[in-house]
């Protein structure tokens, strides 16, 4: 079975500073990787995804993540954060499991951007 580890439960960072949210996964088969963002009392929204091809994927709001197969990682980065980036971020892995597809989520990282 696959699993996802987000090493940091809380990441405080000052506005305009860079940030990296770490994600490692374990799986014996090929995976698809996702980052979701959750604002308070809302559902999850897809931030970016890696399916195949280029190992560096980008979102429209300046986040990027790099798939590293040898390190089984999919860390999320942003070179300069804004107050509005404060949210919880979830890494997820997907594989084909029998007749159903399941997403497995990490425990989440709360990013707090400080003024």
């Amino acid at each position, binding site marked *: 079975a696959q699993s996802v580890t987000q090493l940091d439960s809380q990441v405080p960072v000052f506005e305009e500073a860079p940030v990296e949210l770490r994600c490692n996964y374990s799986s014996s088969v090929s995976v698809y990787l996702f980052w979701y963002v959750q604002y308070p009392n809302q559902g999850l929204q897809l931030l970016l995804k890696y399916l195949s091809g280029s190992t560096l994927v980008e979102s429209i709001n300046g986040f990027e993540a790099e798939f590293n197969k040898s390190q089984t990682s999919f860390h999320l980065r942003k070179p300069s954060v804004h107050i509005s980036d404060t949210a919880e971020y979830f890494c997820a892995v997907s594989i084909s499991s029998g007749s159903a597809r399941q*997403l497995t989520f990490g425990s989440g990282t709360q990013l707090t951007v400080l003024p």
Partner: protein
Amino acid sequence: SQTIHQWPATLVQPVGSPLSLECTVEGTSNPNLYWYRQAAGRGLQLLFYSVGIGQISSEVPQNLSASRPQDRQFILSSKKLLLSDSGFYLCAWSKFVPNTEAFFGQGTRLTVV
């Protein structure tokens, strides 16, 4: 375009009372459907998933049950709520291919008192 509706947004229920949360999807057919629970300060726990009408898979033993009476309707129920059932419940859907993401509803905040 596809949309997912989940209600109610918030719910306060006494211990021992029944529960029914509903989720519907529009704009797609034969979706995979999911119920997740998010406890305070914790990640997402998959409770149930369904690949078709009447087909429910349970991920963890618990006080809850799920049903899928129609293709795009997914219901989470309990006969008697426990305090430990409090949490944020999220419904989601995805297409039946492994390389697509899941789309989430806005969630239901359940407080059992």
